[in-house]
């Protein structure tokens, strides 16, 4: 039986999709069979982050009953398998996202982890993803608006009987005005699964001729290292600390003073 986990945040732009893609790869690196599902049927972009935008059969077709779920599964990077959502807006309004739970149930036996990348907000598509999973992992930023939306998402997930297991804090810059990891844990009443630093390499991953998740492009960069720790925590498998990139004196000086 797979652990089915929805990655949700409430607020848009917290980096859910990036975390989902890279977390899937990190879990796969630990020897787990992983399926990623782009459950954001309206604003799908997990396929873009994985560099797999040209997939002829998508979740839309499956939800519409026009294709079998096995025909919509693609081999992604590093052994991860992936069900993309359609990028076209044509089918989006016809799609019945409530069928998602049934689709997940069909695939439960084949994987160790099924990660659902939920949309922002708490509308029907998000409810479908939350109710299709037994567990929810929240992604937030160390700011009050993101935290408020994470709180609402937690309440909604609990209403739908999806257990909220923890929170990943993304885009951490360790600035004075940020809400601390301890405070976020206390406000959400959840353990912090990861404290992912703001990392320019994540952004740069989208600025390549061939887009590849940061964990594949730069596995030793701070964000990649932290995401691997989240995978380790989810599986209980200890991973040796990855060697952090060695920088020269000048590059250390510039990165210390240059990130504000």
């Amino acid at each position: 039986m797979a652990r089915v986990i929805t990655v949700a945040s409430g607020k848009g732009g917290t980096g859910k999709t990036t975390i989902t893609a890279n977390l899937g790869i990190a879990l796969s690196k630990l020897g787990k069979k992983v399926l990623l599902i782009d459950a954001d049927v309206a604003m799908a972009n997990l396929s873009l982050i994985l560099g797999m935008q040209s997939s002829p059969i998508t979740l839309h077709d499956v939800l519409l009953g026009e294709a079998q779920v096995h025909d919509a599964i693609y081999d992604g990077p590093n052994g991860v398998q992936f069900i993309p959502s359609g990028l076209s807006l044509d089918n989006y309004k016809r799609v019945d996202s409530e069928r998602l739970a049934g689709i997940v149930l069909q695939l439960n036996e084949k994987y160790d982890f099924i990660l659902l990348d939920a949309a922002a907000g708490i509308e029907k598509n998000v409810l479908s993803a939350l109710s299709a999973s037994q567990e929810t992992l929240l992604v937030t930023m160390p700011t009050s608006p993101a935290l408020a939306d994470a709180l609402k998402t937690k309440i909604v997930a609990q209403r739908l009987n999806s257990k909220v297991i923890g929170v990943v804090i993304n885009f951490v810059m360790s600035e004075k005005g940020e809400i601390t990891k301890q405070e976020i844990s206390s406000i959400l009443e959840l353990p912090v699964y990861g404290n992912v630093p703001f990392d320019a390499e994540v952004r740069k991953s989208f600025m390549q001729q061939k887009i590849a998740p940061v964990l594949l492009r730069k596995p030793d960069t701070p964000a990649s290292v932290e995401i691997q720790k989240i995978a380790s925590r989810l599986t209980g498998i200890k991973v040796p600390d990855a060697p952090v990139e060695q920088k020269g004196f000048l590059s250390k000086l510039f990165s210390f003073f240059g990130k504000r």
Partner: protein
Amino acid sequence: MVIFVVFGFFRSFANRVLDIDDTSKPQAQVDFLHDFLSKHNYVYSNDFEENLNILKKKHLVDSFLVTSMDGSVVVSSDGNGVNEGLIGTAMFSYIKGEMPSSEAVLIKKEDGWFMIVPFNKKIFIIKAGSELSNIELRALALDLSSLLHDNVNEGKSKEAQFAR
């Protein structure tokens, strides 16, 4: 280009070393968020009636009524609802007869929504200000079913204690 980099470097240097960063934690908002979850803490008590009210708050509905398939009332959050139970069950049976694949019936009224959904051989009739998705209706039905189940079990265990 070089000038921008150099200016950026000195600006960051000044921020770090002289601590002229003008950001600060929005403490009032943090305090507000600290209290947020306590307002949504849905813990069941030993009182069945109170638990029904907790479920109303948790699922954001105005009232609900559970009937058996023949329309007899099993439980009502308002303490009555015989007529609504009979009408709701009859309405669902009629629609199910005409459209066998129906999963729920949603009726928009002037003052809100009236929703009927079958679950575990019972009919759940729910009133709310806005419509609930089928997923939300089933989550409420599931919570109510387990509450009813627990209540029946508790009753049985009390009867057993009394018999002893």
